[in-house]
């Protein structure tokens, strides 16, 4: 689903030089697998997610998402790529000027789904995260855990083959984190490639999933390959 081949990202520093956010990272995330991505802040987690989302472009190397080599996608193709990727943010990135329903419906409206379809899909997604009865509320009236679940509903409402999450449990207590993780595992089970960037080590320890560790931009460990004996 995602393939990185010797990907590097260097941010120029004003006044000369540059900072290497990622160095020669190669990895492969298959469909239907949940993978943790960890590392200290500044290790390159966010940069990796941004490269996959084409928020940034790599300095070197090749990224292939769902069969699409990203370096062949022009700026006009970026929206279409992003419609294949559900993104869950630590701070939810919800819009507080509209209802829960409208927040979740946004990707469908953008992708041009028929209106009749939108209602069904939004309710299915809200049902999945257990917030079907909150669709008319404004997200500001909901708790942090509920807001995060709305963010997840929005990320998966158009059934993307790929789900990225940036510190999805960052602000949540362990019980809520477990709920969120259950959701992610469900999506992986139905064939979605799930990549969760987190530095929550207890969360990682609790689940036996593949683990990628970044340090100073390098991939230093890939627990999944150890576990599967690759």
């Amino acid at each position, binding site marked *: 689903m995602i393939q990185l081949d010797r990907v590097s990202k260097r941010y120029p520093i004003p006044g000369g030089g540059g900072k290497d956010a990622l160095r020669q990272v190669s990895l492969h995330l298959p469909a239907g697998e949940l993978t943790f991505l960890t590392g200290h802040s500044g290790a390159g987690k966010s940069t990796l997610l941004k490269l996959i989302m084409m928020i940034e472009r790599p300095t070197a190397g090749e990224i292939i998402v769902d*069969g699409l080599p990203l370096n062949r996608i022009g700026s*006009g193709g970026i929206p279409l790529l*992003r419609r294949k990727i559900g993104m869950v943010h630590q701070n939810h990135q919800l819009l507080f000027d509209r209802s829960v329903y409208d927040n979740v419906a946004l990707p469908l409206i*953008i992708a041009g789904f028929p*209106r009749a379809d939108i209602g069904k899909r939004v309710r299915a997604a809200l049902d999945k995260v257990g917030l079907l009865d909150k669709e008319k509320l404004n997200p500001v009236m909901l708790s942090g855990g509920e807001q995060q679940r709305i963010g997840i509903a929005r990320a998966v409402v158009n059934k993307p083959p790929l789900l990225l999450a940036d510190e999805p449990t960052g602000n949540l207590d362990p019980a809520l984190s477990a709920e969120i993780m259950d959701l992610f595992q469900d999506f992986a089970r139905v064939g979605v490639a799930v990549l969760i960037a987190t530095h929550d080590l207890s969360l990682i320890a609790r689940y036996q999933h593949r683990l990628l560790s970044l340090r100073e931009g390098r991939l230093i460990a890939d627990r999944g390959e150890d576990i599967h004996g690759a």
Partner: protein
Amino acid sequence: MARNATPLKPRRQAPPPPKPRAGARAARSAWHHRFEAWRLHHRDSAVDALRRMRATPTATAMTVLVIAIALALPAGITVLLENARAATQGWDGNAHLSVFLKRDIDSSRQQALAGAWGARADVERVQVVTREQALAEFRELSGFGEVLDALPDNPLPPLVMVFPRDTTPGALETLQKQLGEAREVDLVQLDVQWVKRLHAMLELAGRIVGALTLALALAVVLVVVNTIRLAIESRREEIVVVKIVGGTDGFVRRPFLYTGFWYGLAGGLVAVLLVQIALLWIGSPVDQLTALYESEYSLIGMGWINAVVLPLFAGLLGLMGAWLAVSRHLQDVDPHLL
């Protein structure tokens, strides 16, 4: 993942048993669905833009008024100029020579001269104004009746008005010279010079209004640019989210373009209103004034075509301003900043 031979065609993932229909459904999202979605988004953007404008009535009213005043100024002056042109239209088509005869010429001699001039090839017609007619007319119009009664005799000379066929300045001057040579003629007056000056002045005023219109149209565009820039600024988060979930630039742009268009259109409509109110305001003094000049002239309004064209033109200016603002400032709002 093996390198795909046809990389642009996304490989269908291994079919997950529970929801196999999802992909197929999305693929069947046919063109007419896309068109329908596009049309609906236009409608929603237009309505949403209006709703947002209504949500901040004071700010909206101020912007609309600025646009309206900027447009009403050149539009109003243009209407006044059109009126000045229309009022003076007949004047030079009606150019004639007033031939004043010596006061001792009697009316039969006046008729004979008029007949002779009327027969000339370069004269279309003549009109005789006897001393008595002139006196009666003067008495009626000037209000100096009693003063005239006090005079021992009629001070006015006999007059023949000569209407030439050719009203070009050169021909008029030739005719003026020839008629002036007659012994009976006291004075040949040619009243076209000031008409020419007036027209030159109107022409100049027209040019100035043209420049003013251009400058104020630019001002309208800039007002909209600034308004839209602020709107983009205040909806930063929303734009970032829309881009992250796959919104195209067109999708992001659309509500702002509609906002600009609505501002322009509303400003244009208010401008029409302002001009009409101003015309009503000066209408009755103008009627009094033209009555004093013994004219039937009354003000021409904007005309309904202009009343439609001006708001549409203003809407276009608004659209242009919004486009400029959006293409300049939308790049600044990027998911980089997440």
